[in-house]
């Protein structure tokens, strides 16, 4: 289990390559990269800022990843999440799962992303032309997270 909070841009492809290096026992690597968009709800985004609680945020993301890895039998998962200031086009989050077979790796990445949206102690603030606003959790994220509790086998 590899969990990292990054306060500077990172290269998701390189992180993924490092994660899988030397693994000859795994048949599937599935990954997801979330990117910072230049627009949100029609408004231009100049900068995204993610607040976190040092120590607690790391601990909670580790706990979520361990739960998901155990549930989907994934021997290893990787999470890199940006904190601080993020520019449009930069990667916000990378979630990757290694597994002997693909089905559980796909499920593990999707479900862990759903949890990160609603349960990871992170708070997004957008700065755009009309000022700064804190991003509230989306209802659709809560619906997905609730569905993730029990829908996948």
């Amino acid at each position: 289990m590899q969990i990292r909070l990054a306060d500077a841009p990172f290269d998701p492809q390189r992180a993924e390559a490092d994660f899988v290096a030397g693994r000859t026992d795994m048949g599937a690597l599935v990954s997801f990269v979330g990117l910072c968009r230049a627009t949100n709800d029609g408004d231009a985004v100049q900068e995204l800022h993610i607040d976190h609680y040092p120590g607690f945020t790391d601990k909670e993301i580790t706990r979520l990843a361990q739960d998901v890895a155990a549930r989907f039998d994934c021997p290893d998962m990787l999470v890199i999440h940006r904190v601080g200031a993020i520019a449009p086009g930069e990667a916000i989050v990378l979630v990757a799962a290694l597994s002997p077979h693909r089905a559980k790796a796909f499920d593990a990445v999707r479900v862990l992303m759903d949890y990160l949206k609603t349960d990871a102690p992170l708070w997004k603030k957008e700065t755009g032309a009309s000022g700064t606003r804190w991003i509230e959790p989306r209802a659709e994220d809560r619906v997905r997270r609730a569905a993730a509790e029990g829908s996948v086998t």
Partner: protein
Amino acid sequence: MVKLVFLGKFRALAREDADIVLPPGVRTLVDLKDWIARSDPPLGNAMAATPVQCVVNQSVVRDLSWPIQEQDEIAFLPPMSGG
């Protein structure tokens, strides 16, 4: 002394984390939230308008009758929006 930590939009209102001497009569997390509401109404209003999670010494505490101890680090978390 106890350390107060405010996250997300609460941090923006509280400005800085604060080490405070526990005010007289403040024994539990409920007491502390009431005291914050009295001493900093804009922050208190923001905390009243949304679900708030309390984290004491880096562990989630759901029962707000939790007794505060000297040296505790007490954090107030608004709803999360990561990923």
